[in-house]
């Protein structure tokens, strides 16, 4: 099993949710994070003048899926999250040794 961890723009949550749903993936965990990378920050207003912040609001979406489904998930996320401008985000795929459903103690595939 793999955990697909995607960092996306916050305003892309709804399209990504939809796109994943259409690809057959409903379960997910979402987290508010801040990130920096190529986008190199944005400029904000203060009461006078302006300032730059380099850590921008992003969302991290985690979807745990079967190894075979990883590419489908990546595709679904990329399609929905892309704007073409710097800051669209990254996807990281990581190994998961085991999954357990707390409610039933089912493990592996059946748990997610």
């Amino acid at each position, binding site marked *: 099993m793999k955990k697909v961890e995607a960092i996306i723009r916050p305003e892309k949550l709804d399209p990504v949710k939809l796109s994943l749903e259409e690809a057959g993936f409903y379960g997910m965990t979402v987290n508010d994070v801040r990130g920096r990378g190529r986008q190199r920050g944005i*400029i*904000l*207003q*203060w*009461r*006078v*003048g*302006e*300032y*730059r*912040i380099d850590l921008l609001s992003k969302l991290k979406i985690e979807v745990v899926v079967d190894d075979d489904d990883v590419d489908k998930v990546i595709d679904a996320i990329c399609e929905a999250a892309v704007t073409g401008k710097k800051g669209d985000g990254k996807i990281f795929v990581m190994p998961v040794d085991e999954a357990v459903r707390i409610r039933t103690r089912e493990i592996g595939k059946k748990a997610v």
Partner: protein
Amino acid sequence: MVIGLSMLLALASVHADEAVKINTGNTAWVLASAALVILMTPALGLFYGGMVRKKNVVSTITMSMVVLALISVQWVLIGYPLAFGKDIGGLIGSFSNIGFGLTDVGLRMIPHRISATADIPELAFIAFQGGFAIITPALIIAAFVERIKFSSFIVFILIWATIVYDPIAHWMWGGGWLQSFGAIDFAGGTVVHISSGVSALAIALVIGKRKGFGSTFMEPNNVPMTIVGAVLLWFGWFGFNAGSALAANGIAANAFVTTNTATAAAALTWMFISWYHRKPSGLGIASGAVAGLVAITPAAGFVTPLASIIIGVGAGFVCYYAILFREKKGIDESLDAWAVHGMGGTWGALATGIFASVGATGLLLGNVHQFEAQILAVSTSWTYAFVVTFILAKIIDRTMGLRVPEEDEDVGLDLAQHGEKAYS
């Protein structure tokens, strides 16, 4: 002893003729205004609290509460006599006829030397003016947020109120030498805003910059909180300015309208300047409003609504660029009491000397003396406030230390000094 104590705690005198002379309408307005003015100090705490970093929110708001509590007691014990007691040599008021803890005041009317009509209870005036004595030191919090040592803060505020605020209030309003010279200050441009704003600059120079100032930007943690603070300040300021008529009359109504109009004009001005530079900032609109409130304060009862628009627009420009200037100089007077209150108050005090046309006349109506008197008031209060505050801050810094340890500054004053987190 018990007899002595009970005498002290009993009313000195109830004037039998009170019912005859009191104007209940004026009293109602002054009492309502007093409540509004007292609300302004915690409102200021919110205004400031939204602009600091999240780890210093409780600290900042709490400091405003502590000033409110401290000076409320200081005022009835010794502040009011010093400011409004019978004049001693133009410099300070005396305890005669008021007494420590207001023991001689009773329910009597305000004396004629303070109000010509003398038709409200002196205690109503004491409550109302107490609000001014409270908010003035609270304004200085801007200078040292996020790094001051709490105990030193308390000592500073208490002494500052007694040796800076009370005398200046006396000079201008209590029958002191500036008042005799003819300087006018409707609701505190000099007494409140210059004195606090300039003192903020002085103590900021002594305490030094926040760690990281200049390299990292200190992001405001809660813009809505700051706007709410500004809104409550705006609301309370109606009491501050229109209440300063000490009557519910045409002057009060005029002060009310000029206050609102100047504030609005300054908020719009600030908005357009910040928009011109980049974007119309909400924080900027709130700051502009405060700048307008400050600048119209000394003028409110003396100018027309049309003149108040000019004063408001001027306030927007003066204070906006004063902040930019302060930043360029690399001074960490963190929340800009100097730029907004010091410079805004200065502009307002001079503008009063220019535009006065209601119950007084200014430069535009040919009264040069008024303008000179205003310049005198401005320059004296600048000098006195700066010098005394600087020395006081230095002394406290050398003895108790003004600043928290670096580690406490890192962790934030909420945790380090109050053992609290703003939000769970």
